[in-house]
């Protein structure tokens, strides 16, 4: 349970129960299609939709209680992880993108499992794509995370999120909450089309992971281009003009991608490291809830 343990310990160390509760509440509130059949009551946590508060019961019980519906339990979270070799590189905070992707997917999966939802996974690269069945246990989630983690190696084929999404469109038949974890730098027309198709069927949550800046003067040690397999020369880190050009390019691409995804109506969040991943997940869920209400 290595991957999931990491998620749990990070959640507990970082945020105590309170924030975990908030996250769970956010997750619950972000659900769509809540069933009409009332199931039970549970304690209110920050983030729960105010609409769900059972005011009468709360008055009786002297604490805020929210209604839970049967349908809530039967959601499916489909983790959609790009596992090409570019995901085995480092990200802009010098964290392994693979670890970060596993962490984010694990957190979303953990929230879902805690909520009683089923979690499945689609992952792959340019050559191979796989789907794992859905289940609602932590052990199953751990297997999913391990599969994605182990598939992401420097020797893996190139990343191709479009191929993974096409595969998901073909294989995932039911309506799910689809959590995409990838390292795209721009949204191509093809990608936009795929996202539109997925949006028609699923709730889309898009996490992107950045790349390390090879012109960063603070870098130490040798850096290798994971696609070409050659060393990225050390002298790139000493040129201010190159750094400025690269930074503006990355910024431009990022804002362009953000704008495009907003146009498409896909909520997305950039994850930098495990510390900020929790708040990123929180923000994403929050935004998703509001986006849905619009």
């Amino acid at each position, binding site marked *: 349970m290595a991957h999931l343990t990491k998620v749990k310990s990070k959640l507990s160390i970082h945020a105590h129960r309170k924030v975990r509760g908030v996250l769970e509440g956010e997750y619950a509130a972000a659900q769509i299609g809540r069933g009409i059949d009332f199931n039970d009551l549970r304690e209110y946590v920050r983030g729960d939709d105010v609409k769900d508060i059972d005011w009468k019961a709360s008055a009786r019980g002297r604490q805020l209680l929210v209604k839970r519906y049967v349908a809530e339990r039967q959601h499916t979270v489909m983790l959609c992880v790009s596992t090409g*070799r*570019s*995901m*085995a*590189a*480092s990200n802009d905070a*010098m964290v392994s*993108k693979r670890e970060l992707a596993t962490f984010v997917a694990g957190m979303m999966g953990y929230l879902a499992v805690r909520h009683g939802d089923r979690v499945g996974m689609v992952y792959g690269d340019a050559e191979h794509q796989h789907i794992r069945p859905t289940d609602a246990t932590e052990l199953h989630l751990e297997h999913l995370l391990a599969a994605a983690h182990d598939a992401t190696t*420097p020797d893996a084929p190139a*990343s191709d999120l479009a191929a993974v999404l096409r595969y998901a469109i073909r294989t995932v038949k039911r309506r799910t909450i689809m959590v995409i974890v990838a*390292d795209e*730098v721009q949204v191509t027309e093809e990608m936009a089309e795929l996202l539109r198709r997925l949006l028609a069927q699923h709730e889309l949550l898009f996490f992107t992971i950045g*790349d*390390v800046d*090879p*012109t960063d003067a603070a*870098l130490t*040690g*040798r*850096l*290798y*281009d*994971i*696609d*070409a*397999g050659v*060393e*990225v*020369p050390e*002298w*790139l880190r*000493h*040129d*201010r*003009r*190159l750094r*400025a*050009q*690269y930074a503006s*390019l*990355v910024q431009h*691409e990022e804002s362009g991608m953000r704008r495009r995804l907003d146009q498409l109506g896909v909520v997305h969040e950039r994850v930098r490291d495990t510390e900020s991943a929790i708040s990123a997940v929180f923000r994403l869920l929050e935004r998703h809830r509001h986006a849905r209400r619009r």
Partner: protein
Amino acid sequence: MNEWTKGDVSYLWPWLMVGLALLVVALLVVWLRVWWRRTPQDATYVAHTARLRALPRFRSLVRRQTAVGAALTLAALVACTGAILLAGRLQETQTKEQSEANRDIMLCLDASYSMAEVNAEVVAQFQEIVTELEGERIGLTIWNGNAITVFPLTDDYDFVTDQLRIAETAFASALSVGDAYLDYIEGTQVQEDVASQLGDGLVSCVQRFDREDEERARAVVLASDNDVIGEGIFTVPEAAEYAVENRAVVHGIAAPSTAERAGDEAEFRDAVEETGGTFNLVGGADSTEAVVESINDLEAKKIEKPPLVQTLERPQTGIVVTALGVGLLVIVWAAQGVLALVDRQGGREQRGGRR
């Protein structure tokens, strides 16, 4: 004076050069293999570098780095080549024939009036000999009652030729009007009644030889008519003995008038032959030529010495090549530094502009 003859130019340590060249090649191979080797296990990877490569600044930097790298590599290789050349120690072997002439020839002329003509002829002959000499030393002593050194043993042939010409002129002018001859032989006759002392003259001439400790062929060319007047210090046989003791060979040239006095001629001949020299009467067909031949025969006594060999380092090429390489290295480094400085300035201005 013999010149050094240039000989073989070769490397003292060619194996070291080969070894160093192999080392350089091996290092290059190792370096290239490290360069081309697949990335290490714990490498830091970066993805999506294509967008970086597309940047105009990246391209110009790559061009610059390529140029600088090529120049540095070239300079390093040139410096290595120079160092290898230096390590091989290029040497030139020069040899010098040690035919340092070790003959001393003392012209020993009887300055009495009757000998003037003979002397002129001998001196004239010797002017020709001098032109063919190499390293031998020649001296001129004239004597009558007393001996005078006209010039001591020397190998300054220009001087010798000048002096012989003066002597020839002086002796030739003996029969003509003027004081040239008398001036020349001034001091050879102090006492009127002591003249043509062959014994004293020969001993004086033998005494003119220096460098007694060296193995040298010593020859005295003694021209006289052995017409002794008065009492000298040495008799002719005593003088001959003295010459033998000093390992000097005496070649006698007798004036024609000597033949008229059989005893004197015999005494002269015996003395000369005792020293191993030749005896000739002037007027005989080739008397002076015979003397010249005898002198040349002395060459047989020349001491065989091995040629001198000197080995000179010739590091110039190596030094020039090494300096070229190192100079290029320094220039490229300096150029790189200047470029970096310019970039830094440019970057500062850009940032300032943005502010």
